[in-house]
C-alpha cells in the first residue's frame, strides 16, 4: 500500500503539488483524475522518486521512501510505467523483459524464478510471445504498451503506478489494455492509475481522487464519483461517456 501525506513537488522550483494526502490500500485500484497540468504525472513521479519531493512523506508498505532514488524505490517493490511507453527499442521483447527483472537477478532470488516469470508474462500477453525475439522498435504502439506493462511486472512489484496506459492507442487496443488492468486487479496488485478515459478508469477502480491545481479536491468511491452529476460536468465531460472503449 501507498500512504502519501502532505506531498509537495514541482519543477525548476515552480511548485506543482501543494500538499497531497491520500492512501492507496493494499490490493485496491485507485484512479487519479484531473485536467492537464493538474499534477497527475507529477504525483506519480514524486512517489516513484523520478523527481524529489520538496515536502511531505511517501510510505510504501509502511516504509518511508520519501526522496529515495527511483532505482531504490523500484527494488523496494514499486513499479512506475511512465507516459509514452519507453521500451528499449534496440532490445528484443525477451531482453526488454529480462531487463525488467534485472534487480532481482542480483538479489537473493534465482534465475529460475525469472524464467518462470517470463512464461507467466507470455501467458498474460500472448501477442508478446509471438514476437519474443523481435526488436521492440518493430512492435506496434499497442504491443509496446503491453511490453511496458509486462516489463514492469517482471519486477514482481507489490505496487504499480500506471501513467496514461491507453495513450495513443487505437480503440481496439484501448479495450485490451483495460482488460489487462482488470486481470492485474484480480491478482490483487495495488495500483494507482492515471487515465484520460476517465469513465473507463472509474468503471474498474475502487476509489477515485480528483486533482485540481495540485490539490485533491475530492476523494471517494469510484462509483460515487461516476454517478455524481456535478462532478461529471465539471471534470469528466458533459456527455458522461468516453464514447469508447
Amino acid at each position, binding site marked *: 500500500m501507498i500512504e502519501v501525506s502532505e506531498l509537495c513537488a514541482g*519543477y*525548476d522550483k*515552480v511548485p506543482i503539488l501543494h500538499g497531497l494526502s491520500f492512501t492507496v490500500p493494499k490490493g485496491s485500484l485507485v484512479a487519479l*483524475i*484531473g*485536467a*492537464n*497540468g493538474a499534477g497527475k*504525472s507529477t504525483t506519480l513521479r514524486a512517489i516513484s522518486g523520478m523527481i524529489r519531493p520538496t515536502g511531505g512523506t511517501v510510505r510504501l508498505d509502511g516504509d518511508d521512501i520519501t526522496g529515495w532514488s527511483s532505482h531504490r524505490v523500484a527494488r523496494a517493490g514499486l513499479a512506475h510505467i511512465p*507516459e*509514452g511507453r519507453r521500451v528499449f527499442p534496440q532490445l528484443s521483447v525477451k531482453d526488454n523483459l529480462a531487463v525488467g527483472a534485472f534487480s532481482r537477478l542480483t538479489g537473493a532470488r534465482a534465475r529460475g524464478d525469472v524464467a518462470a516469470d517470463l512464461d507467466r508474462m507470455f501467458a498474460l500477453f500472448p501477442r508478446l510471445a509471438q514476437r519474443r525475439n523481435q526488436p521492440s522498435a518493430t*512492435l*506496434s*504502439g*499497442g*504491443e509496446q504498451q503491453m511490453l511496458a506493462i509486462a516489463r514492469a511486472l517482471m519486477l514482481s512489484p507489490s505496487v504499480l503506478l500506471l501513467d*496514461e496506459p491507453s*495513450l*495513443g*492507442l*487505437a*480503440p*481496439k*487496443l*484501448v*479495450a485490451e489494455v483495460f482488460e489487462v488492468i482488470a486481470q492485474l486487479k484480480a491478482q490483487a496488485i495495488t495500483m494507482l492509475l492515471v487515465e*484520460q478515459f*476517465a469513465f473507463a478508469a472509474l468503471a474498474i477502480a475502487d476509489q477515485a481522487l480528483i486533482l485540481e491545481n495540485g490539490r485533491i479536491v475530492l476523494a471517494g468511491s469510484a462509483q460515487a464519483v461516476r454517478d455524481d452529476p456535478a462532478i461529471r460536468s*465539471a*471534470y*469528466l*465531460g*458533459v*456527455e458522461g461517456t*468516453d*464514447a*469508447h*472503449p
Partner: protein
Amino acid sequence: MRPLPEKLVAPPVLALALLLPLPFVGISNYYVHLGLIVAIYMILLLGLDIVVGYTGETSLAHAALFGIGAYTAGVLAFKLNLGFWVALPASLAVSALFGLLLAIPALRVRGPYLAMVTAAFGAIVQILINEMTFLTNGPMGIRLNRPALLGVLPRDREYYYLVLALLLLAVATVNRIVSSSFGRAFQALRDAPIAADCLGVSVWRYKVYAFILSAALAGLAGTLFAYSERYISPNTYSIELSILFLLAVTLGGPRSRLGALLGAAVVVLLPNLLADIELVRWIAAAIGAVAILIMAARVRRAKAVTSGTLDMPVALCLAAWPAARSLTSVVDFKLTIFGLMILFVVYQMPEGLSGRLFRRSGPAAMRRAAPAEAGLHVVTEADGDLLVVEGLTRQFGGLVALSGVSLTVKRGEIHGLIGPNGSGKSTLINVLSGIYPPSLGSIRFLGQRLDGLPPAAIARRGVARTFQNLQLFGEMTAFENILVALNHSLRGTLFDVILGTPRRRRSEEAARDRATALLGFVGLADLADEKARNLSYGKGRLLEIARALALEPRLLLLDEPAAGLTKPEIEALIANLRRIRDQGVAIVLIEHHIDLVMALCDVVTVLDFGKVIAEAEPQALCRDQKVIDAYLGVQP
C-alpha cells in the same frame, strides 16, 4: 544565496565599466596586459557561446579559428606590409569563410563525432600554419607592429581601450543577434531540429549562420591577440587552447555575456594567481572554512543527516586544508585544478557562474499586452482540391510503410486519418511534410509538386504540422516557441537585426502581438513564460497547434492532437479546430478518439498495413465491417 536579478545589474555593461579605469588605478603593466587578454578571450567566447550555448554543438576548432585570425593579420603584415586596419576586416572575412567550412561537417554529425571532426580541423590548421613556411614563416613566427593611433604608437594601456571599444561593439552585436529571431532559431535547432525545419526555420541555414558568426568573432579576437602580443607562432593555437575556451564557456555559464567575461577572467587570471603560493594557501584555507560553515548550516537545517547532505563539504575540507599546509608549488597542477573546476561546475552549477550569481530576466518584459482575440489569418477562396496525393509509396529497407496511398483534401475540410497502430498514418504525415521523401508517387499542393522538397520549403508553402511525440523547443518558453514559427513574418536581414532598423522592430512587435494572441487562442496565455519542457503532455500538444498556426498555414496536419487530453479538454479542442476550419484552413487529423473524429471530420480515410482500406463519411465508416475488424473492435 538568493541570486540577484540580472536586469538590476545589467551585468556586461557594469562589468565592462569596472574594467574601464583599470589602467589608471596604479595597476602594474603586467596586470594591464592580463586585462587585455581577458578582453580578447571574451570576444572569442562570445562567439563560441553562440555555437556551444545556443545551438548546443561542440567545437574544438576555435583555437584554430583564433589562429586563422592572428595569421591573417600576420601574413598581411609580413607579405603585403598591410597593417592593423586592413587586418581587422580581413580577419573577420577569412575566419568567417573557415567557419562556413566547419559548418559542413556540423550539418551531418553532432555530439562526440562533431567534437572529433572539429578537433581534426584544428590539428590540420595548426600543422598547415607550421608547414606553409612560404606564407607564414613557419615555426619562426611573425613579428607585428601596433598601429599608430593619433600619431602615437600605443602601449598596452592605449591598446587596451581600443580592444575594449571593439569588445563593447561585439557584446552589443551579439546581444542583438541572440535576442532576435536568430538567437531563437539557434536554440530551436538545438532542442528539436525536425520541428524547426517543419516550421520553415531551415536547420541547415541557421547552423551555417551560427558557425560563421562564431568563427568571425574568433578571427577578430585572433587579430587583436596578434597585435597585443606583437609576435605570433603556430604552437599557441593548439587543441589545449580550444579545450580551455570550452572550459571558459562552461565555467562562466552558457548563453550569457557575463558568463563569457567570467569565464575569460578565470582561465586567464587563475594560472597567474596560482603562481602566488602565499595567496593560494589563503584561498585553500578559506575554502576549507567555508566548507565547514556549509556543513554546519546543513546539519542544522536538515531533518535527517544523510550522506548526500555532507559529501561535498567533507570532500572540500579533506582536500583543501592539507593542500593549504603542504603545497609549495601549484603551477604544475594547473590542468588538474581546471579539471576539478569543470567537474564541480558540471555537478553543482550547470548554468555556470553567471547562472548561479544572477537570475535571468524572463522574456515577460518583452511581451506586450495584445488583443485577446486571435484574429486568425482568413483564407477566402473558392472550393476545390487543396492537396492531391497519388500512388504514394514509402519503403524503409524491406518494410513497406505506405503502399500506393491516394487521397484528396479539399479546401476548408477536416479530413480524418485513422487506422491501427503501425498502419502508416504518421509515416504519411512525415512524407507529406517532407521529413521522408516518397519512394514513389506524387504530392500536389495548390497545383504545385511538393514531393522531394525539404521540410522548410514545404512549411513555407503553407503546410504546417504537429508531432505525435512532442517536438517542442524544451528550454524555450511557450511564448518563444511560437515566436520561432513566426520567423517568416519578420522583415530584414542579419544586418537589420544588428542595426535595429525600424522595419525590423515593427515586424518584431507585430510578431510578439501575434504570438500572444495565438497563446490566448489555445488557452495557454497564463503559461506564456513557462519553459516548454515543464508543460504537461496535453498542454504541450496545444502549444504545438498554436505554433503550427503561427505559420499561417493553408493545411494543418495534426498527429493525435487529443492524446493525453481529458474529456472536457477534448470538447474545447473540438471547438477550436472548428474555428480554425471556419477560417478556411484545411486539416488532416490523425486521431484515436473516435468521438472527436465523429464530431469533426467531413471525410475519413482508413489505413491498414500502409494501404487505404476505406474512405467515407464518419457515420458510414462505423458500420463498415472491415473498419470494425481492423480498428474499432466493436461498433461504437
